[in-house]
């Protein structure tokens, strides 16, 4: 026990030293950068990444045996630290970009606006790609089917081949539908072919319909996710923009940022009010609602497909378990009502008996 404790202490000390050394080295680089801004290197990114790596190693080693609340807190603590590092990184990047534009004669407010436009464009690049890919049905089918791969392996193999056929079919190529049909039948043969004679299980139309509805729901979810991400990016960008304006106001008011940690102060002052303003807009409520609804609709479609396979394997489905619970719930209520009625009857009989005895 003592030996274990010693090992553990040594381990902590070693990691702590490594961490501190890394911080120091990274910090030195960062300040070299600050002095030389606007240079092209990005040591702050390196700092952030190294910190994150060390943090993950540390948390894995030290909280492996600790329990829920402490572990969760440690993880959130590190996430908070990481967010702060990112803030420093963003602030430094922005500073660098703005100074660069000012050196070419631009006013700082205008430089800030241009920088924020760049941030928006960069941040939204990925969602735009998603929007674009949403038009490529074949690619989407492939992604969609990957989600079911483990669960419905034989089917998926066939359907993954089928994605090209779906695309061709969508363009009006009738032969693709025939090919698609063949792939479905192959899949059926590999999985539930032996059960096809059973009424209710042999309908490929039913299962195909479920997959198709699942696909539509999944596609809707992807689109809703993209729209939501776009709003979040817009919110984050506005927060950053306001943080820089706050930083400027601080300087005008004569407030000093006294330490590295205080870099986060402007953000602290503006972040949640800006988020609240955006999050309370009707547009955000609609976009968030669409995401949640699409997510739930997809979950239901997914369940329908999974349940189809569970039924084939003679495994109880969630719908069946819910049905059992509902029956139990109804019976529990009925029993409670009967017990209550019985207690009232018993009390009434007791009172009548007592009255009769007293008369006798």
């Amino acid at each position, binding site marked *: 026990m003592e030996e274990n404790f010693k090992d553990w202490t040594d381990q902590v000390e070693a990691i702590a030293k490594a961490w501190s050394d890394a*911080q120091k080295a990274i910090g030195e680089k960062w300040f070299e950068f*600050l002095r030389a801004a606007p240079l092209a290197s990005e040591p702050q990114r390196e700092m952030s990444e190294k910190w994150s790596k060390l943090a993950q190693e540390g948390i894995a080693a030290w909280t492996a045996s600790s329990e829920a*609340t402490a572990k969760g807190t440690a993880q959130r603590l590190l996430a*908070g630290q990481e967010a702060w590092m990112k803030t420093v990184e963003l602030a430094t990047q922005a500073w660098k970009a703005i100074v660069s534009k000012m050196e070419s004669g631009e006013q700082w407010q205008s430089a800030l606006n241009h920088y924020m436009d760049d941030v928006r464009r960069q941040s939204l690049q990925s969602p735009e790609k998603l929007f674009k890919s949403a038009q490529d049905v074949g690619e989407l089918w492939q992604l969609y089917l990957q989600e079911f791969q483990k669960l419905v392996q034989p089917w998926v193999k066939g359907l993954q081949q089928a994605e090209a056929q779906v695309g061709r079919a969508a363009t009006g190529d009738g032969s693709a539908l025939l090919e698609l049909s063949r792939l479905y039948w192959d899949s059926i043969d590999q999985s539930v072919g032996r059960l096809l004679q059973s009424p209710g299980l042999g309908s490929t139309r039913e299962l195909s319909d479920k997959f198709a509805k699942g696909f539509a729901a999944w596609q809707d979810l992807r689109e809703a996710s993209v729209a939501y991400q776009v709003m979040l990016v817009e919110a984050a960008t506005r927060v950053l923009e306001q943080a820089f304006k706050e930083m*400027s106001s601080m300087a005008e008011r004569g*407030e000093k940022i006294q330490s590295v*940690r205080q870099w986060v102060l402007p953000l602290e002052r503006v972040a949640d009010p800006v988020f609240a303003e955006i999050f309370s807009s009707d547009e955000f409520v609609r976009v968030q*609602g669409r995401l949640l609804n699409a997510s*739930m609709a997809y979950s239901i479609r997914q369940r329908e497909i999974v349940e189809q396979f569970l039924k084939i394997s003679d495994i109880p489905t969630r719908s069946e378990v819910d049905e059992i619970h509902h029956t139990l719930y109804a019976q529990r209520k009925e029993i409670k009502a009967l017990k209550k009625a019985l207690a009232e009857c018993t009390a009434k009989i007791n009172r009548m008996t007592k009255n009769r005895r007293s008369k006798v």
Partner: protein
Amino acid sequence: MPPLPRKFNAEEAIQELVEINRKVLKGIETLSLIREDDIRIGASAKEEIYREDKVVLYRYSPLVEQPFPIPLLFVYALVNRPFMVDLQADRSLVHNLLKLGIDVYIIDWGYPSRGDRWLTLEDYIDDYLANCVDVVRERHDLEKINVLGICQGGTFSLCYAALYPEKIKNLITMVTPVDFHVADGLLNRWAGCTVGAQSVNFDLMVDALGNIPGSFMNAGYLMLKPFLLGVQKYLDVIDIMDNEQELMNFLRMEKWIFDSPDQAGEAFRQFMKDFYQSNKLIKGEVKIGDRGVDLKNIRMPVLNIYAEQDHLVPPASSLALEKYCGSEDYKALSFPTGHIGMYVSGKVQRDLPPAIASWLKR
């Protein structure tokens, strides 16, 4: 030139970084030694009085020889655990009321499991809550008892009081939503008070999830103040990492925040649709079972306590009670704090318990 508040001294800044990380390391080391059982919530002694399914009624052990004869029943929300009102000895509404001679009971709704997915608001209000009230009445041989409802528990208490006014002597509501369409509440807006059906489809949600996971609810609450609750809080905690007592206070709060029971599906569906989306409570259209809830039936004395900086239940939402309830003995009382500050703020804990006790004993 954009005004930059200051350029740092590199050596000082590096030293600061190292120091911060030393504190983080020390903190994680401390955290790793803390066991879940060390983080105890619920400081006051209590005994189980009644149990029905997963619901348990507790009575706190009185701290005076002759407690006030009419007991006070706490009705908490289904969201989070009720023991926030007794977080720790020096931050406990319950403890302070016990010291002032109030006889306190509390309902613990428990952790609904899949088997509880079909529980409705009728089950919670007209069965569990109603039975707990009757148990307390019988134990004290009283026609009427005092009820203190908190947040959603306050809304439940209003429904119960409207259905059974003859069983309630005094009603206290604390940070209780009444008008769910007050537009400055972010939760109200997210639930659809401005855009209606274009927001969340709660039918779809319950059909998909069954019970609503507590973690799902928590994610929503954190999104109300993402920076403060997701980042800033954990930066600030670095400063108290070497103070075991303050760290334990922080962990107790963390435990309470993330110890979120799942929400029984059908009850959640009805609450979100009828209260949040349709605002039926103030319209007199809420049905509990086959009985309508008319707030005008609430004619007993009412003390309505709200938090002036409440971001979950806007003050205007609570204050609507005066307009819609039937009580002629209505009093509103506010504190300059937020929703959670009502239970844990030192200033509130100094002033709130005596205010409640003196109002009950008046």
